[in-house]
């Protein structure tokens, strides 16, 4: 009887099960598992259609479908890779860098089992939740190369990038034996923390995006012709969907409907709202007018920057993080890009590369055991030297992403080429690559 009550208490507290005793509730806990399913759907919604519309609105009308097609193409391709071997390489056994192939084709990953992700969520939902992150990460790169990369080259690049960058990073940061998984691996070489993907998602995609857009070169007519967004309305609609979906991303990363999830929900809200407001005010002061694109960019930047700290910082810290998120990525997009002259079409680097890096560092500054006991003496005692560990994780992520992307991009360039012909690019990728138009009349 005592053991059965302990089981129930563990479920209600989202805590560990009583070890070495046969439990009468071996399956997932319904409440936590329900939140995991909702969260997974929310993160899928971030990509389709959230990110697709956010990016789609920002390109010229002749390229709107190419962006939507790239997002859907990546969703399909990555899902197949994930089922085949991606999940296994990310989360099944292996060493500190990469997993093994024991769970290929989701072997042994069952709806009725728990423990692969956390105490009370279904193993199969854990694999689907992580899949939704694996989809959006390469889709973020689309923003930097929009309007000028062949569809086939995008798919081949992404397939290689998943194996060389994403699967290793998901493993290193979130697997229980990962190199940088401070909260779960007491033997981690770098005891860093990343709640929902500052390094894994935003830094890898952001820094890879910068490298890829440099190797790809500028769009035809860049700097000479005007290339304004064709629909700020679509862009704002996409931004709202990203914000809503991000609750699955951040609060869902608590892997249960517990107090840490509530904290992540609150910090996500505060950072997004503060950063959107701050970015627009920066524009107002420095450029004369607060723009809708400014609000949208700031909201996304706030969401990016709070991601690694969402479940580790307190709400008031999230407001301060939001102010940083509204100012620093704004300066990167408005001035850094101009100073260096690279053509990051939709500012993937400015928002996700700079924002992800900023978030990883600020998480080291503001993390508080009062927000998450895993940080403190009752948990993994991560506070000592945390900022230094965060900086090590940042450095490793940047170097790895830059080197791997450089290698992959040059291979794809040599084998199939990266860019369409100039004529096809001028005509627009919608017609030249997909044979259809976004707006017929």
């Amino acid at each position, binding site marked *: 009887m005592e053991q059965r009550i302990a089981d129930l208490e563990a479920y209600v507290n989202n805590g560990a099960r009583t070890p070495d005793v046969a439990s009468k509730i071996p399956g997932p806990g319904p409440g936590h598992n329900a939140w995991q399913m909702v969260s997974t759907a929310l993160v899928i919604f971030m990509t389709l259609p959230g990110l697709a519309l956010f990016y789609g609105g920002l390109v010229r009308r002749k390229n709107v479908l190419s962006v939507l097609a790239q997002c859907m193409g990546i969703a399909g391709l990555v899902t197949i890779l994930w089922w085949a071997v991606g999940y296994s390489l990310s989360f099944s056994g292996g060493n500190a860098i990469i997993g093994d192939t024991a769970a290929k084709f989701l072997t042994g990953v069952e709806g009725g089992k728990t423990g692969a992700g956390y105490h009370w969520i279904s193993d199969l939902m854990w694999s689907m939740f992580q899949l939704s992150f694996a989809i959006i990460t390469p889709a973020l790169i689309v923003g930097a190369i929009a309007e000028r990369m062949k569809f086939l080259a995008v798919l081949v690049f992404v397939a290689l990038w998943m194996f060389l960058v994403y699967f290793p990073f998901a493993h290193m940061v979130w697997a229980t034996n990962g190199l940088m998984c401070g909260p779960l691996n007491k033997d981690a070489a770098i005891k860093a923390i990343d709640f929902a993907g500052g390094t894994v998602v935003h830094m890898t995609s952001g820094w890879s995006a910068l490298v890829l857009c440099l190797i790809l070169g500028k769009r035809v007519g860049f700097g000479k012709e*005007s*290339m*304004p*967004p064709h629909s700020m309305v679509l862009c704002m609609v996409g931004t709202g969907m990203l914000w809503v979906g991000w609750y699955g991303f951040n609060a869902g990363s608590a892997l249960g409907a517990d107090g840490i999830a509530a904290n992540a929900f609150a910090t996500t809200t505060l950072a997004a709202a503060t950063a959107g407001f701050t970015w627009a005010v920066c*524009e107002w002061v420095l*450029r004369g*007018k607060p*723009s809708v*694109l*400014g609000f949208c*960019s700031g909201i996304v930047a706030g969401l990016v920057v709070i991601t690694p700290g969402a479940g580790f910082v307190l709400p008031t810290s999230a407001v301060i993080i939001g102010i940083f998120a509204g100012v620093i990525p704004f300066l990167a*997009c*408005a*001035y850094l*890009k*101009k100073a260096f002259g690279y053509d990051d079409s939709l*500012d993937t680097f*400015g928002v996700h590369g700079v924002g992800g890096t900023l978030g990883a560092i600020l998480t080291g500054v503001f993390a508080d055991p009062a927000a998450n006991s895993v940080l403190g003496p009752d948990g993994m005692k991560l506070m000592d030297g945390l900022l230094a560990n965060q900086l090590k994780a940042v450095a490793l992520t940047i170097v790895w992403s830059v080197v791997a992307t450089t290698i992959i991009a040059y291979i794809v360039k040599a084998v199939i080429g990266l860019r369409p012909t100039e004529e096809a690019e001028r005509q627009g990728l919608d017609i030249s690559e997909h044979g259809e138009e976004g707006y017929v009349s």
Partner: protein
Amino acid sequence: MKLIIAIIKPFKLEEVKEALAAAGIEGMTVTEVKGFGRQKGHTEIYRGSEYTVDFLPKVKLEVAVSDEVAAKAIDAIGKSARTGKIGDGKIFVLPLEEVVRIRTDERGEKAV
């Protein structure tokens, strides 16, 4: 007969239409166009990129009239479309060789 082509500010279209109706003009054709004259464009800023938008939205109005009504029509358009600010537009007047009412095959002034 004259063909009057007027380029006006879009928000002035209703007033111009009413002024022409008051002057006895019974038909017109309207097109949404873009262009610029001395007004030039404006600047749009998207994150780090600044774009000068030269072509501003305008409305092009085409009216075919008999010679005797022409002066009144030009006057009506001019007065109703005027704000006194740069960018009010222009009126072009062209001689019109022939007009055909397709339904009845009437020609000339009867068809205007």
